[in-house]
């Protein structure tokens, strides 16, 4: 068993290992494994070692926060002052922000050690991380398969033990789906629970930053550290969770009402279905009450998601014009020509596809039929979730309809690829929290993820249910051999 954050924190405090030694172990592992896995696209070893030295100092002085000296990674769309932040897009090539994202500010203050920026789908648009301009990260469990996406590098880094934990962003499943493909834990918090300041926007009303980690407890520790309102993000909420969520995981699930909606199981791979059903049985055998519920509007979630996310993206990505930062075309005849060439050369196909889709649904004459209608259906989906959560504490569902795809598998059919987000997008539309925890392997040995969904700001219950499952189910997936070996 790999050491969790809590165990590492104890070892650091007992001087069994220093933060510098721990960091060096991860650096060695990254140097050895990253060329094959491509989890990281930008490495920050120099600053990591300096941060580790400072962390050792903080530890020596006592009273250091839990995450002090723990090596970690950030998705490449989270702004880091003076450190490349490119969204894995050619258009932001070499872009170095001059400010830190709110989440990184918080972690840095705790003494976190940043090892580097992780690979992702370009601008977080994709389900395999294959749209990255740096090439896809590979699934450490089987390098013939994708990591999932868009936070594929963040999932692969944690899976291969090239980071103790990482942060990803989730607009339609981008934390949970790669977590499920790589066999790690991924939490998408409630919309507004974590500040988006410094997260490069894809779909602003859906985007949320969250942790990927090896255990529910680690995810809870990281969530504790990054949550909270921020006056720089109007959509963030300073919700009072009462106490540290990581310290309240051991709640008895007896009497917990778990909703199961058949809509979540339509078209799901049978191996996945049976693993989730087994997990539901485990909950039931331990005293949870299983409620069969309906979410009829769920079938509309996918088109609603693609309309809203693409509409927002088409506007959010308008600023990449080569004028102020990032890539600029080398030859042009005038300002308009420069903008057109910069964007044509700088963006990849999937990003262009979504910009065009978004531009179309916002155009006059189509706005009412697409964007406006999508917003109305979004409200209906929210109402259905609200109603469900009057009778349920959490919902249990698959994270994805399938396990990891082989590399280059579905590159030619965007719609088929969009369908793989079917279980995760409703959660973003409703703005509720959800976690993906490993719950088994398919016949090829690829991990399967179970999704536990809660009500708005119901992270405590979601984490408790996930922690209970993790502790009770025993070993459901094989260990990954390799990585930092700590």
């Amino acid at each position, binding site marked *: 068993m790999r050491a969790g954050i809590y165990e590492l924190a104890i070892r650091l405090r007992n001087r069994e290992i220093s933060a510098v030694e721990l960091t060096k172990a991860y650096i060695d592992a990254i140097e050895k494994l990253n060329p094959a896995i491509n989890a990281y696209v930008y490495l920050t070893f120099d600053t990591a070692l300096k941060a580790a030295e400072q962390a050792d100092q903080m530890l020596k002085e006592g009273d250091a926060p839990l995450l002090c000296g723990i090596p970690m990674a950030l998705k490449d769309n989270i702004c880091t002052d003076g450190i490349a932040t490119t969204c894995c897009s050619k258009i932001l090539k070499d872009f170095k922000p001059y400010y830190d994202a709110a989440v990184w500010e918080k972690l840095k203050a705790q003494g976190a050690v940043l090892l580097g920026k992780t690979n992702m789908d370009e601008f977080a648009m994709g389900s395999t991380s294959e749209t990255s301009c740096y090439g896809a990260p590979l699934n450490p469990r089987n390098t013939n398969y994708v990591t999932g996406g868009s936070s594929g590098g963040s999932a692969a880094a944690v899976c291969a033990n090239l980071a103790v934990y990482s942060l990803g962003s989730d607009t339609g499943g981008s934390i949970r789906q790669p977590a499920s493909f790589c066999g790690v834990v991924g939490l998408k918090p409630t919309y507004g629970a974590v500040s988006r300041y410094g997260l490069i926007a894809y779909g602003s009303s859906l985007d949320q930053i969250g942790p990927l980690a090896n255990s529910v407890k680690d995810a809870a520790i990281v969530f504790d550290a990054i949550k909270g309102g921020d006056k720089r993000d109007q959509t963030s909420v300073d919700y009072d969770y009462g106490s540290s969520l990581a310290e309240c995981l051991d709640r008895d699930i007896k009497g917990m009402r778990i909703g199961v909606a058949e809509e979540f199981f339509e078209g799901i791979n049978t191996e996945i279905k049976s693993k989730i059903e087994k997990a539901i049985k485990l909950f039931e055998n331990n005293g949870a009450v299983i409620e069969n519920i309906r979410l009829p509007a769920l079938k509309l979630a996918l088109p609603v998601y693609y309309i809203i996310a693409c*509409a927002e993206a088409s506007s959010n990505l308008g600023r990449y014009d080569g004028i102020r930062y990032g890539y600029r075309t080398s030859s042009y005849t005038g300002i308009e020509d420069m903008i057109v060439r910069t964007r044509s050369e700088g963006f990849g196909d999937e990003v262009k596809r979504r910009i065009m889709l978004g531009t179309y649904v916002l155009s006059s004459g189509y706005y009412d039929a697409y964007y406006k209608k999508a917003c109305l259906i979004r409200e209906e989906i929210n109402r259905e979730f609200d109603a469900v959560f009057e009778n349920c504490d959490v919902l249990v569902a698959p994270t994805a309809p399938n396990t990891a795809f082989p590399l280059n598998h579905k590159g030619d059919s965007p719609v088929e690829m969009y369908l793989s987000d079917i279980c995760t997008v409703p959660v973003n539309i409703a703005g509720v929290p959800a976690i993906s925890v490993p719950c088994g392997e398919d016949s090829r040995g690829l991990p399967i993820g179970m999704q536990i969904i809660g009500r708005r700001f119901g992270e405590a219950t979601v984490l408790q249910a996930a922690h209970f499952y993790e502790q009770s189910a025993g070993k459901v997936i094989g260990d990954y051999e390799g990585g930092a070996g700590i």
Partner: protein
Amino acid sequence: MNYEIVCGIETHIELATKTKIFCGCTTEFGGEPNTHCCPVCTGQPGSLPILNQKVVEYAIKAGLALNCKINTKSHMDRKNYVYPDLPKAYQISQYDEPLCEKGYIELDSGKRIGITRIHIEEDAGKLIHESGLTYIDYNRSGVPLIEIVSEPDISSAEEAKEYAEKLQLIMRYIGISDCKMQEGSMRCDVNLSLRKPGDPRFGVRTEIKNINSLSFIQKAVMAEAERQADILDAGGTVVQQTMRYDEGTNSVTPMRDKENSDDYRYFPDPDILRFCVDDKKVEEIRESLPELPFDKLKRYMNVLGLSEATAKQIFRYRMVAEFFEDTLAEGASVKNTANLIVVTIFSNMDTEEEKELFAIRISAAQFAALVKLADEKKINIGVAQSTLQKMLESGKPVEEFIKPEDLVGISDEALESLCKEAIDANPEAAANVRNGKDKAINVMFGYIMKKTGGKADIRKAEVLLRKLIRQ
């Protein structure tokens, strides 16, 4: 052929808040290029806007002053278009839920020009063209604006000018903008079409963009109405297009069409929450509004009894009106205060801007002290004027220029004895007056003025002299 002008005006006004609409950067005009900037107002990836509540408050002030209905529920939209001075490639504005709606401005004729809506939005940066290169200054990017859209109720060039003038005055009065058209803190776009009198249908309209002075508004409306009339008279049709007014040639010409179509793909900005303005807040803002300029004008004429000409000169400038009223509050008389401001103080101010700023070196209390001497006839108006001029130049109080002994010489008793002295010193002239040669009284006036250094009240002296001569 005679046509009826159908004209509406869209006015952009920069709000005088200290900070920008979505970040903490200063709104100060000028400054080295790109020094009043941050990640938010330059649209850096990952930055997010925070709506400045002062902007909402100022816009509500404008709405209330223009008799608008304030929408208690409102939100911000994104207006998407590509231009290098717009760093996010969208302007955060308001589309279908403006903060204020359905107001009006009343012209002198009593005609009301409807206000369709007032909404808040951000300004863009500025392109600077220099030696073949283009630079961008984002200092102005994110400066708060309100856009005030009128109904097409304006039917002459004079009305257009009067509308803009009144709008400017009201906005200055409520203190939300300096409305300097030359500096661009107030910019007008004029929509204009012609139709045959009585025709209920509108003709094809054109839009004249960015007019930067009040008189140009009048001239541009005249020029464009003429241009359209010529086209219609020749049997042609007006093309709907964007025009610019050239003050040098006094002509209106089409602007180079931007490639952008008019489809701005408005949608609610997901980064900014819908906001509510409660009635209590609106009432608070209403309470905080100063007396509006045209109410003040009426009061100056009807209650204070000022002539229309004088009242208009004073109420036009908020600072002047304030100074005037502060002086009255110190107990000075309406008539002398108004006259001294209009005659003496204004003679030191050549431009509208100077009157607008009204930077003078004496306080209302110091001014009142002087006016009261004139009110009590302790000095005559000529002395009051010359003393005021000295006070304005030096910034020193009235005591510096008029000593108590100067005043004693012209108290009622002193004046009477001075009159006696004048008669005694000029027996011949006195006799002439007694015999009906009225002009001879001037001899005695001269004596009195000389003795008092011009400070005596000459009318009082005349009454006294005639009384004494008849005795």
